């Protein structure tokens, strides 16, 4: 089926609707169809991005609030009571609200920002543009995907405003806390809203993922073989595969949880005495470990759903701005593939201390440590791509290099945590917090920033302000290390996560000063992110205009479209592809676009 037919819908198949190959459409668009219920993948990408930005501000603000408590456990902030009411009685964050904050911070950042905001944005934006398609395989499903995400967001936000507060049992929502309404305030309506919101989120990400996979496999332009795809597309492809195969399992887990909550089944519950009601529950035969298996079967692939798009964009931006071909293209593709496979086989390393059979655990140790191999291959290839390149230090490039730095630092501590014996000591300590924030949280944020700075000109036809970009980068990277590096030491000393106040403990109050310092840095870093947000919205309207189609001198197809591409992306025919995406610095030329045929005295890269 041709791209044109996809765009126009296939109602009329009696006569092949190929007039003269005009892809640019001028069908009448209203405000609603252009900006709200848009089916243009570029607009949907922007919707995902801006919703993601709003979520990131909220989620980041939550972390500032609980860092306020952790850094200043003795102080009171009366203004907090003005904003938060009884959640901050007397200017101190209440324990229930503290749990709600860390739970929502995790949920929001993992799912709403780094899954929907990251791959929702860039899969939508880049897939059709970089493979040479007019739109997604199903623009309608694509639109639905965004609106399910939107509904999911509305439900999650509304849970912040109910009397008993949002879910507060941790972003993993382990039973029995999540299964028994009487267990805590956050286990009541907040938990139900959390589950509903997440179910909608799963639907959204499945609709999106199906579309990404089938678009990449079926709608590539002529000459765009799989091995000529930019690495961004490979990464987004495997991200979608991960999501499509793991999110449904999470949904299964949630369904059983809902029945335990409301129908009286005992899938996860057994032998429970509830302190709050002084009652023994009749539930028998259930197992909370079952939930953990179902949750982490998604939960682990989820970290790669977050990380892979960042890896793909970093590869692309790095090669473009080092003016060198990416080193080891096939090794890059192979290692993404290996990571995808391994992602499904390591989930139980989150469960080493739950009573998992140690013999079984040793297999999961081995498989977990195996992930170091493809990860190391990727790092090696990024470093060798930079090696002796003509590096242009654009903000996007800085964030790409920063990503590699963070990925190394955070990846190395993964080798510690992957050992089941070390995990006995490190489990649920700040060491874990430090590890996953660096390698998954901040690193993926860097990938996202790298993508936003690099593709902003394509999105809005204007540049982001560079000076603000540099300030944003340097304070963020220095700040990220200052926040999370010290947490490794706290974790090694055994300091547990999820505690409201450490000052009462002789073993941990030595870290009082350190916690103070971390909190101050995290506020500065948060403020700098607001600078980025300002830069983003300011530049949409007032940024320096893009004057050429290909401002970065890049090889990929999105830079062959007009500066302001319409729905359909290319005026006239979709260009044909003749070479891979990374012919930089070849035969004395700075870059050779993918659309340029291989000349007679040139050999193709294989």
């Amino acid at each position: 089926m041709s791209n044109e037919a996809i765009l126009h819908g296939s109602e009329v198949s009696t006569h092949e609707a190929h007039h003269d190959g005009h892809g640019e459409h001028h069908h009448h668009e209203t405000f609603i169809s252009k900006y709200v219920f848009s089916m243009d993948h570029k607009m949907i990408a922007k919707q995902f991005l801006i919703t993601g930005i709003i979520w990131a501000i909220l989620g980041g603000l939550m972390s500032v609030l609980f860092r306020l408590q952790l850094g200043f456990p003795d102080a009171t902030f009366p203004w907090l009571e003005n904003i938060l009411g009884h959640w901050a009685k007397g200017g101190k964050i209440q324990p229930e609200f503290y749990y709600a904050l860390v739970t929502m911070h995790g949920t929001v950042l993992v799912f709403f920002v780094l899954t929907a905001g990251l791959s929702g944005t860039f899969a939508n934006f880049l897939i059709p543009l970089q493979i040479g398609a007019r739109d997604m395989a199903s623009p309608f499903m694509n639109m639905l995907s965004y609106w399910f995400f939107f509904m999911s967001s509305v439900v999650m936000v509304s849970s912040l405003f109910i009397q008993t507060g949002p879910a507060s049992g941790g972003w993993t929502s382990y039973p029995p806390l999540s299964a028994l309404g009487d267990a805590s305030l956050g286990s009541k309506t907040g938990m139900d809203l959390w589950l509903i919101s997440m179910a909608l989120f799963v639907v959204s990400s499945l609709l999106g993922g199906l579309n990404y996979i089938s678009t990449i496999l079926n709608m590539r332009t002529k000459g765009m073989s799989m091995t000529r795809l930019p690495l961004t597309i490979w990464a987004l492809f495997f991200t979608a595969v991960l999501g499509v195969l793991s999110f449904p399992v999470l949904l299964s887990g949630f369904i059983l949880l809902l029945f335990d909550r409301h129908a009286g089944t005992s899938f996860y519950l057994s032998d429970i005495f509830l302190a709050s009601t002084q009652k023994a529950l009749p539930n028998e035969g259930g197992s909370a470990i079952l939930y953990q298996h179902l949750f982490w079967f998604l939960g682990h692939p989820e970290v790669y759903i977050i990380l892979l798009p960042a890896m793909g964009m970093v590869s692309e931006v790095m090669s473009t701005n080092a003016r060198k071909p990416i080193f080891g293209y096939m090794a890059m593709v192979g290692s993404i593939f290996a990571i995808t496979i391994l992602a499904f086989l390591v989930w139980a390393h989150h469960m080493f201390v739950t009573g998992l059979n140690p013999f079984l655990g040793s297999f999961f140790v081995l498989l977990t440590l195996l992930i170091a191999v493809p990860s190391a291959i990727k790092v090696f290839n990024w470093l060798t791509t930079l090696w002796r390149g003509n590096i242009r230090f654009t903000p996007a490039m800085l964030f790409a290099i920063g990503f590699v730095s963070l990925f190394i630092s955070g990846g190395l501590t993964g080798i510690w945590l992957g050992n089941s014996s070390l995990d006995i000591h490190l489990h649920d300590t700040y060491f874990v917090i430090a590890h996953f924030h660096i390698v998954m949280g901040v690193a993926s944020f860097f990938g996202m920033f790298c993508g936003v700075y690099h593709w902003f000109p394509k999105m809005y036809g204007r540049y982001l302000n560079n000076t603000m970009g540099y300030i944003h980068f340097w304070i963020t990277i220095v700040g990220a290390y200052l926040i999370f590096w010290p947490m490794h030491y706290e974790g090694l000393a055994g300091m547990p996560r999820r505690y409201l106040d450490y000052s009462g403990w002789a073993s941990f109050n030595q870290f009082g000063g350190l916690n103070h310092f971390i909190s101050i840095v995290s506020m500065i870093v948060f403020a700098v992110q607001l600078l980025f947000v300002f830069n983003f919205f300011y530049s949409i309207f007032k940024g320096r205009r893009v004057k050429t189609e290909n401002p970065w001198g890049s090889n990929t197809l999105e830079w062959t479209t007009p500066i302001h591409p319409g729905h359909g992306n290319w005026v006239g025919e979709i260009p044909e592809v003749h070479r891979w995406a990374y012919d930089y610095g070849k035969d004395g030329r700075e870059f050779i676009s993918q659309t340029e045929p291989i000349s007679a005295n040139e050999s193709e890269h294989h």
Partner: protein
Amino acid sequence: MNIAMNEQVSEQKKRIHPHKFTLWVGLASVIMMFAGLTSAYIVKRSAASWITIEFPRAFWYSTVVMLASSLTMQMALRDFKQRDMAKYRRLLTYTALLGVLFIVLQFVGFSKLWKSGTTFEGSGEGQFLYIIAGLHILHVLGGVVALLIMFLKAFSAKKKNYDAIPVEVMSTYWHFVDVLWIYLFVFFLTMA
């Protein structure tokens, strides 16, 4: 340019239609959901206090109905391709009715089971059956709704539709929910 366009079209014809492909990926995702539930079942089966059930006869009848509906769906597809629209519409109706009958029979089975004392209390074979078969019913229901939409579209006088792709997508989905039920039924019978 026309030649280039034709080449492009013919090259794309060799590939599977994107909508069909999307369906297959979607089915993989549905399979993962049921794989998650059935593997949870396998894990729970070896736990203490596992209670098995006696299957009411209604589930055998519903299985036969499901198989029959697959047959009528396949015949509907054949008639659509042969442009026998009256027969196509009739067979679509039969398929949808058999789908509804299947759902009714499943609920008959559920209520027999419930009356025999297997309620939501506990987490044995019965509770898993309620949830897993219940989710399967939702998938059948989705199929019935899709059938109704196709049925109404087949009556539209304005648009003559000769595109077999939607009908093929529909029939693949319908056979899938059929096979899924057979798998689940055999699973429950053998893994008691």
